[in-house]
């Protein structure tokens, strides 16, 4: 009796250790499967950025110093770059919210099929190259472009407006590129809102507007917030559209970093700017993770 129990116990122990080694093997296998992709990202994205960041702590003589960071705060040129970058990013984000929210709200109230068909209007630009869309805006906004000529023939303006190669052009182009990034998470969130709750609020005596602001709007906030953070981060580091539509008059952070390297070969200064940009982006992501959860990106 005793003996039998003992051997049973030993058996359980042996099973447990086999299970444990199996589990360990399983974990190693799974890690092995994920490793190539993770390594590729580490080597291409993380390693160079870490190396680049380290450059920012050396001065021109090769000694450790914070000179590069001090210059960011002292130089009027760099300060202006930061101010312009923030102004544009905030303007683009705000405009995207005012254009995107009503659109998403309208779409979310339409029948599924109609809304899905209209979403093509959002998805086609989203999938179309940023360069192609920037080119289109260059043509539309030019001095003798279709916008100027139609405004003139309508008698709204006498002289053609300077729309491209300046701040206005950069902001218009960037809003066009960024808008889908606001719409997609916001629309997904609105679709998942249980509209019965809004109907219940109205049924209990709330006005439709009151029900919208007190019931629907708060529930759409996580999606709105995700969209805002996404648009803001992408705007902070945006290169292509302001470089082309700004016509050299608008210098955002990304262009300043690029020209500091390719024109002035000043790696220390460029990497200090890069570190600041990276920290800003990471802070925004941290914030987004707290409020929205990055996990949601992995679900449908």
């Amino acid at each position, binding site marked *: 009796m005793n003996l039998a129990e003992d051997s049973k116990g030993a058996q359980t122990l042996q099973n447990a250790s086999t299970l444990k080694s199996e589990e360990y093997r399983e*974990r190693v*296998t*799974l*890690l092995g*499967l*994920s490793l*190539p*992709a*993770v390594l*590729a*990202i580490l080597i*291409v*994205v993380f390693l*160079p*950025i870490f*190396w*680049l960041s380290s450059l920012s702590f050396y001065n021109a003589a090769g000694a450790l110093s914070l000179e590069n960071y001090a210059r960011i705060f002292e130089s009027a040129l760099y300060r202006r770059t930061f101010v312009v970058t923030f102004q544009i990013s905030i303007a683009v984000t705000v405009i995207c919210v005012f*254009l*995107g929210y*009503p*659109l998403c709200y*309208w*779409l979310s109230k339409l029948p599924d099929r109609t809304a899905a068909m209209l979403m093509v*209007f*959002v998805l086609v*630009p989203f*999938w*179309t*190259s*940023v*360069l192609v*869309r920037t*080119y*289109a*805006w*260059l*043509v*539309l906004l030019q001095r003798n472009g*279709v916008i100027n000529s139609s405004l003139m023939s309508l008698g709204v303006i006498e002289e053609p407006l300077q729309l491209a190669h300046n701040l206005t052009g950069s902001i218009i182009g960037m809003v066009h590129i960024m808008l889908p990034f606001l719409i997609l998470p916001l629309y997904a969130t609105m679709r998942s809102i249980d509209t019965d709750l809004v109907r219940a609020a109205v049924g209990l005596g709330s*006005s*439709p*507007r009151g029900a919208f602001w007190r019931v629907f709007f708060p529930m759409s906030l996580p999606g709105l917030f995700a969209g805002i953070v996404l648009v803001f981060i992408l705007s*902070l*580091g945006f*290169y292509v559209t302001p*470089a*082309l539509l700004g016509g050299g008059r608008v210098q955002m952070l*990304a262009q300043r970093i*690029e020209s500091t390297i390719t024109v002035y070969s000043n790696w220390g200064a460029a*990497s200090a700017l*890069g570190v600041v*940009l*990276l920290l800003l*982006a990471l802070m925004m992501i941290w914030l987004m*993770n707290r409020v929205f959860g*990055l*996990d949601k*990106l*992995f679900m*449908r």
Partner: protein
Amino acid sequence: MEQVGQRKIDGMWLMVVGIAVLFFLILPTLIVIPMSFSGASFLEFPPTSFSFRWYAAYFGSPEWMSATQTSLIAALMTTAIATPLGSLCAYGLHCSTPQIRASAQALVIMPIIVPVILIAVGVFSLYAKLGLNYTLTGIVIAHTALALPFVIVTVMSGLQNYDFDQELAARSLGASRAVALLTITVPQVKFSIQTGAFLAFITSLDEVVISMLVSGGDNATITRRMFNSLRDQLDPTIAAISTCLIVVSVTALIGVQLIGHRKNIDK
């Protein structure tokens, strides 16, 4: 009664704004298509005459053709590498413990979130040491890292909707892990893998900033050439090239939508 009227007006306004925003999104995207068939020697919209001259200019130019070839080869190779690597990674992460998955997910989506100019400058300096600047290999490696997150995210969301017990059943009935993975799991998440592949292809084909620094010489990509050309002047040839790029993107988008549609029917 008053409330109903107010609601109707609110609804009207919403519809007007919604339609206006949709047009704001789609019209500038598609405007290059009619422009590309213009017969004039300068850019005009609306075009006054019709011709294929800008397509002739595009397809007749050895520089543009070589850039197109570089971009297409780079995009195909990126897709061929990123799709299997990303899918395996998604599978590995899907089966891992929640803690490992959470930290790996944060790491894996970084290429989407980190400003691409920083990746470009970093890769450029790394490649300078390795002699990979201006090579096809260099472009493909960088684009693969950029495309991987898209594949991983789509395949992981596919795996979430897949009943993993099916693979476990196959394995308990004697199939090896590899056989179970390839014959049971892969066919069921095939649609997500295909979507990821489309995204990887488009990511590489449309990528500008890294290509601008890292590609060049005989291996300049089409986006690099377009960017440089747009800095100088508004060459109508770009309208023809843009139209071709739109056709490729829209074809990929339709492909993804069809896949999604078929998947819904299957369910």
